[in-house]
Structure formats: structure tokens, C-alpha cells
């Protein structure tokens, strides 16, 4: 593995972050014979992936492609690649972005697949990348991508959005022929807002499931959630059509319907009476929806926007409101024209 030749050979792509999604994406690429490296912070994890071909912490019981090689040498891997795919939780995103920034060059492309917002600053991940690196060709990958289904080789799709056409054009062929269809787009803001916001709706949908409210109620929540998401996104500068695409309704459908989704699980367990502390303590992975709710709630207040579902979820997570009460309160809000707020932008 460490002969001189392989060390200096050019890579197709470097995936930064050995969590569930990062490992899944890297596995798909390795399976397509792409020259890919997976960077993990912990040396033991890289070693496990290289030797055992497993990632037991994040993808227990799943065999990874033999060709998938992991590393914990960020600098060396960065020098060998043109394309970097960042899959790091929003909480540690800035830190890793800064490390990457030490070796990154202006011709390199950086795409991230993190569905979250930086809580303290309300910055989107592309903004963090812009601040912490010299990269300009920045993009975001998002869509209905439940890791377990991805690993099982089931078909799905995702959107790569970037202001730079080249970004989509370089990422698409890497996944060509795989079960992950990559579409390209330009609306970075919409894609990032959708990716983060849908986790809040997933929490609400999970809670509705936990309460056993049925499919009609859940559909109501998801649809109105989509409308809130679009309103909020448009106010931040997004293109409203993005929310009707893979990164919007596409991701929302998967996350809100599937019990595989972490945020959905959190909502469901809260509805069944567990406390947030208990739920979070028992999870090995990050449920981005929890901090995102706080961030979006505060930002919406600053923007003088009313987002009823976000407020309800925030109440449950941070203000000790009971799930059933919050859901019933949602039914009591005054209703007007369904699409008025979106149509008359």
C-alpha cells in the first residue's frame, strides 16, 4: 500500500470524513474503480478500514470494498487530488476546513455533503469553506441518501450544486454507472438550506409517528414543513425550485418516511416519552436536526419570520414542551391561503 508509486499517483477524489455517509460515498467510488482515498481523523479507524474492510462504529456489520483505502495523512492526500469531498459533521466542520485550508490550492474543487448549519454564526458550510480555505470552486452534494440503502446498492440520486459549472461536470463522471445518479445545479444556498432544514421536519415527522398520528397527519407536517423550508430559503436568497427537487422534497420524503433516519428516530423516541438527553446519549452518530433547530429558530426570529413547525420542534427540544401538546398547538394556528407566502415573493 505504501510503495512509492501509489503514494505519488494522482487520485480521482479524496473523501474527508469516515462517518456513515463519507464511508458510503467513498465505497461507491471505490466500487467503480475510482482512485479514491478516505481520510479519517483516527489512525485506528483508517487501519480497520484498510485491514478488516469494515467501519464497525458507523456501519456495523457491513463489508466495505477491498479497494477502499483509508488514510489519516491529510496533507499528503490533498496534494494528490483535484477534488475533495467533505463529509464532516457541522460541529467540527470549521476545524477540519481550516486544516484542509493549510494545503489547499486554488485549482482544487471542494464539495461538501454536510447537512447542517454552523450554530454560532448561522453560516452555511460553503461559507465556512470560503472563510477557511482559498478554494473558490466550492459545491454541495445533497439528496435522499440514506447510508444503509446506499451501501446496499439500491438506486438513488443526489444534486451537486455549485456556482461553478465545472464542479458538477467533474463530479458527475466519477459516479457515472453507479447506483447514485448525480444531477447538477447552481443553487448552493437552496441546496444547503434544504439539507439542514429537512432534519427539523424529520424530527417533527418522527414525533408524529411516535404519537401514532397516522399518515395524513405526517403528510400535513411534511408538506407544510416544505413550505416553511422554501419560505425561509427564499428569504436567504435561494431559488424556490430547488425545494421541489432532490435536495428538497426528495430528501424530505426519504428522511421523514424512513425509520432509518437518525433525526426521525430522535423525534419518535421523544414522542414516546424519553428525554432529549437520554436519546442523544444513546446515539453514536450526530443527529444534525437538534442543533439545526436552535440555529434556524434564532435566525428566523432575527428575520422576523414565523415558522410554526420550527417553533414547535424548538419548544419540544429546548423549552420542555410535551410532544403531544406541541403537535396539537400546531393544529390551532390560523390558516390562510396555502401558497400565498411563496407565490407573492
Amino acid at each position: 500500500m505504501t510503495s512509492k508509486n501509489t503514494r505519488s499517483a494522482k487520485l480521482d477524489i479524496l473523501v474527508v470524513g469516515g462517518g456513515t455517509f463519507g464511508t458510503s460515498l467513498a465505497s461507491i467510488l471505490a466500487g467503480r474503480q475510482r482512485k479514491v482515498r478516505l481520510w479519517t481523523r483516527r489512525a485506528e479507524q483508517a487501519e480497520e478500514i484498510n485491514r478488516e474492510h469494515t467501519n464497525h462504529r458507523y456501519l456495523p456489520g457491513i463489508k466495505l470494498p477491498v479497494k477502499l483505502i483509508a488514510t489519516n495523512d491529510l496533507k499528503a492526500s490533498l496534494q494528490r487530488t483535484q477534488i475533495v469531498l467533505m463529509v464532516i459533521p457541522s460541529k467540527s466542520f470549521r476545524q477540519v476546513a481550516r486544516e484542509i485550508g493549510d494545503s489547499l490550492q486554488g485549482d482544487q474543487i471542494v464539495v461538501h455533503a454536510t447537512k447542517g448549519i454552523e450554530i454560532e454564526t448561522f453560516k452555511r458550510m460553503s461559507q465556512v469553506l470560503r472563510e477557511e480555505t482559498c478554494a473558490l470552486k466550492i459545491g454541495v452534494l445533497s439528496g435522499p441518501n440514506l447510508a444503509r440503502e446506499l451501501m446496499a446498492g439500491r438506486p438513488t440520486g443526489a444534486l451537486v450544486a455549485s456556482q461553478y459549472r465545472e464542479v458538477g461536470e467533474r463530479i458527475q463522471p466519477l459516479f457515472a454507472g453507479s447506483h447514485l445518479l448525480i444531477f447538477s445545479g447552481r443553487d448552493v444556498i437552496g441546496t444547503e438550506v434544504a439539507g439542514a432544514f429537512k432534519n427539523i421536519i424529520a424530527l417533527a415527522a418522527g414525533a408524529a409517528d411516535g404519537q401514532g398520528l397516522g399518515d395524513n397527519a405526517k403528510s400535513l407536517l411534511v408538506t407544510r414543513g416544505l413550505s416553511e423550508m422554501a419560505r425561509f430559503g427564499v428569504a436567504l436568497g435561494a431559488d424556490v425550485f430547488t425545494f421541489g427537487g432532490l435536495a428538497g422534497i426528495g430528501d424530505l420524503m426519504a428522511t421523514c418516511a424512513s425509520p432509518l433516519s437518525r433525526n426521525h428516530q430522535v423525534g419518535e423516541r421523544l414522542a414516546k416519552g424519553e428525554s432529549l438527553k437520554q436519546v442523544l446519549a444513546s446515539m453514536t452518530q450526530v443527529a444534525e436536526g437538534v442543533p439545526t433547530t436552535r440555529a434556524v429558530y434564532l435566525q428566523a426570529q432575527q428575520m422576523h419570520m414565523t415558522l410554526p413547525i420550527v417553533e414547535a420542534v424548538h419548544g419540544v427540544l429546548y423549552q420542555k414542551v410535551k410532544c403531544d401538546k406541541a403537535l396539537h398547538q400546531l393544529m390551532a394556528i390560523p390558516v390562510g391561503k396555502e401558497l400565498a407566502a411563496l407565490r407573492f415573493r
Partner: protein
Amino acid sequence: MNAAEKEKLLTEVVQRTVDRWCRDPKTTEEALFDTIYHERRRLEGEKKKSVAKRDRALYDRSYHQGLKASAGTQREIFRQIIQRFANEVVGHFDPRVYALSTRVIPVAMNLLLNSVSPLRLVETLQGANSLIDQLDLEGQTHTLKRLARQATIVLVPTHSSNLDSIMIGFGLYRLGLPPFTYGAGLNLFSNRLVGFFMHNLGAYKVDRRKQAAVYKDVLKTYAGCSMEMGFHNLFFPGGTRSRSGAVESSLKRGLLGMGLDAYVNNLRAKAKKPDVFIVPCTINYQLVLEAETLIADHLKAQGKSRFIIEDDEFSKPRRVFEFIQQLFSLHSRIHLMFGQALDVFGNQVDDQGVSHDHRGRPVDRTRYVLDSQGQPAVDAQRDREYTRELARSISESYHQNTVIKSTNLVSRAVFDLLKEHNPDLDLFRLLRTGGAEESFSLQEVYGRIERTLTTARSLAQQGQLKLDKTLADKDTVAVASEALAHLGSYHRKPALERRGDRLFHQDRKLLLYYQNRLSGFAWEG
């Protein structure tokens, strides 16, 4: 620029424009007739009859020839029109006068100003040597001087008055820099003496009445080629003078992008000094010569303002004279604040010419423009986005380097009071009627100024804007009296006037104009 360079520049501009527009017979034909159409329409409104007649005959001939011509001939006719445009833009630029002007500019500027009303000006200005004395040069002047030796500089100032280009001319002279090439509107050439020096101080002529797309392309190409040849450029990315009085936030990216094009072309040609650096700069006045016309125009159309104003204060010598007289008598300072230099991607550049990212780490800027083979290349879509990044950085720099003056601050304080006292009036009614009271007690106004000043000082401390010396050091009363001295004079109707212990707001449009300078900042108060 010598004669050979000028010739080379002309040839290059024509060649590139022709190449771009005459790619195939169909586009050539369309562009040719489109240009003829726009030119004939323009000539309908031409005031000089002899010029109109001559030009009309030319375009009529081109039209009739073009109708029957082969593709090759059409291309030739179009080339001639482009050549004509290019000649006109470059104008009667005389390299000898250019060289001379760089040495005698103060004399030239005095002539220029005195030409407004020589006798009276000389009478009034005795003791006050020249306008130069009113000008303060601040900010990154050292970096600018240094970088000007090793790269092409594109100076991009904010724009609020037709005096801006003259101020910049002074400023560059004082820094010991050669004049910068820039495109000046035809109306600036209307005074023959001013026009003569404009041309010879590096200005090229921009005729805004010419609507043909190819004409605008000739202008852009001219700027781009001159950058490539190493001539420092100056242009106002806001396009026209800020109508509202606010610092520009949306910038014209067409011309900005020429810097990047020049940089890539230089890299490809392995030029000795390939770099093009952008230097944002703010020009800050206590009083703006054309304030009344500008704000009226802003309000008249709110966004659909007239692009060319030919009948403003700048065209009335008496007003220019009064304005300058006022500035002298009030010891008013004009601040030219030079920002940190930027590369064509919007990264900050230090005085060694090294680009830095947001964290201050050095960046190899050549790598932004490499294609997949590792060679420098133009990519129109990518480069548009790069230019958007640059525009964002310039806009940021404008805000950080805006020097707030007492007129701005006091106008904001009084305007806030007006709004607070009349919560039910919309902006237009407030401006027209002035609300319920025609004056405020001085005490209330002072209190408000104090609050606004506190906010301004904290913003300045955070580096979000800069404060004029009076605002930084003096107390509320001093700030107020300086502002009142300015706002109560020069303009036809005093914007604010003190009578006893009351303050009367008379021209609320002017208050709006001067306080707009503070919009776009994180302001509370």
C-alpha cells in the same frame, strides 16, 4: 504610452472585437445591421446638425452596401465601423502631452478650475492655494505605490460626484503615480479646456448615447488591452454617480472582469509582469456638489434613474465655483481612502504582491486559472463567478473604508427623529410635508446625535467603517455645529437651520441623501 504602443493598442482592440463578433456570416450580418440601426436612431437625436448629417450619410451608405454585399464584404464594412468606434474612444490622445501633463498636472488642474470663472475664483481663493490642500490621502497608499511598480493597477473608487475623477487625478499625482487610463463620459469633455486635459491625462471617451452592443464591447476591450499592456486603469464600478448617496453595493462586473482576462492572457503570453491588482478606494465629501440633482433623480424614478444627466450642477460653472468656495471657507476636508489591494479573484494582496486567503495564508493565485491540463486558460463561466467574488470583496472594502462625516451622521440623527415623530407617514409624504413639526428642540437633536455617534464609534472600533477626525475626537456639540455649518450653506435651500434653540429641517431630500451614506452598515440607533 508612446505612438507605437497606441497604434498597437488600437490594432489589438479592433482585431479582438472583430474576432469576437464576426465568428460566422450570420452573426456578422445580424451585428452589422443591429449596429447601424442603433446608430441611426442615436443620430435622430443628435444636436450638432453637421455631425448628424455626416454620420447619417455614412451609416446610410453602409446599410445599402451591406444589403447587397457578400459575407466577406459585410465583415469588412463591420470592421470599418468597429475601427471608427475604436478611433473615437482612443481619441486625440497625444503621448507627448500625456508625458507633459504628468509633470505639470497641478498647473493644469488650476487652469481647469479657474476656467470655471477665472477672475472670481482667483479673487476668492487668495490665501487658499488650491483644491489640493483640501484633499487628504489615507489608507494603503504605500502599498499602492509599491505595487504600481510591479503590476498593473486597476483603481476602482466609489462615485458620488463628477469632481471624483479630478480628485483622483490630484491624489495620484500627489502619490507620484502616473495618470491612470479611464473612460470618461462625453459630458465631461463638453468644456473644451477640461476635455483637452482629460484626454491627455489618460481619459478615453465614452459616449453613453451609443447603444450598439459592439460599441460597449470596444470600450471593454480597450480597457482590457490597455491593462494587458501594463497601463494602470481607473473606473467607477458603480457605473454612474450614486443617486441615493449610499455607498455602492451592486457593481458592474463587465468591466471588472477585464482585469481577470488581462491576467490570464498575460500568464499565457508569459508576460514579465503578468499581475493585475485591483485597488478599491472611497471618496468622501462633507458636501456633494450635485447632491440636490442626484437625490431628486433617485426619488423621481426610484431605480429607473436617468443614466445621463447633462443639466446638473457640474455643468453650471457658477455652482461649481460656489461649491469650491464653500469648501474653502469651511475648511472642509475631502478624504481619499485607499483600501487594501486585491487580486482579480478578490483575495487581499500585501505590499510584496502576495495574495492571502481569509486566514492570512499565502495563496498561489496562478492556480485559479489552470485548466485540466494545468495550463492557464480562460473559462467564461468560471471567470464570471471569479469576478463576482471580486465584486463582493470590493463592496466589503468600500464599506470598511467609508469615512463618515459629520453631515452624514447628523442627517441620520435628524432623519431618524423625523421618522420617529411621524410613524404614520410613508417616505414620500415625510419628504414632502416634513410631518407634524417643522423643527425640533436642539436638546432633543443633541441627544439623538449623541446616540448615533456612540453607535458609529462602536462600528468604527469593529472596523466596519471609518470616522472623520471630528467624529472620532470631538463632542456632540462640535459635531453638530460642523454639520450645521455645512448643511446650512452651499445648497440652494439649507437642509438644516438653527434658529435660537430650535433646529428647522428645510430640505429633507438632502437629509435623506446625506444620511444614506450610512445605509448598508449594521446600524442600530
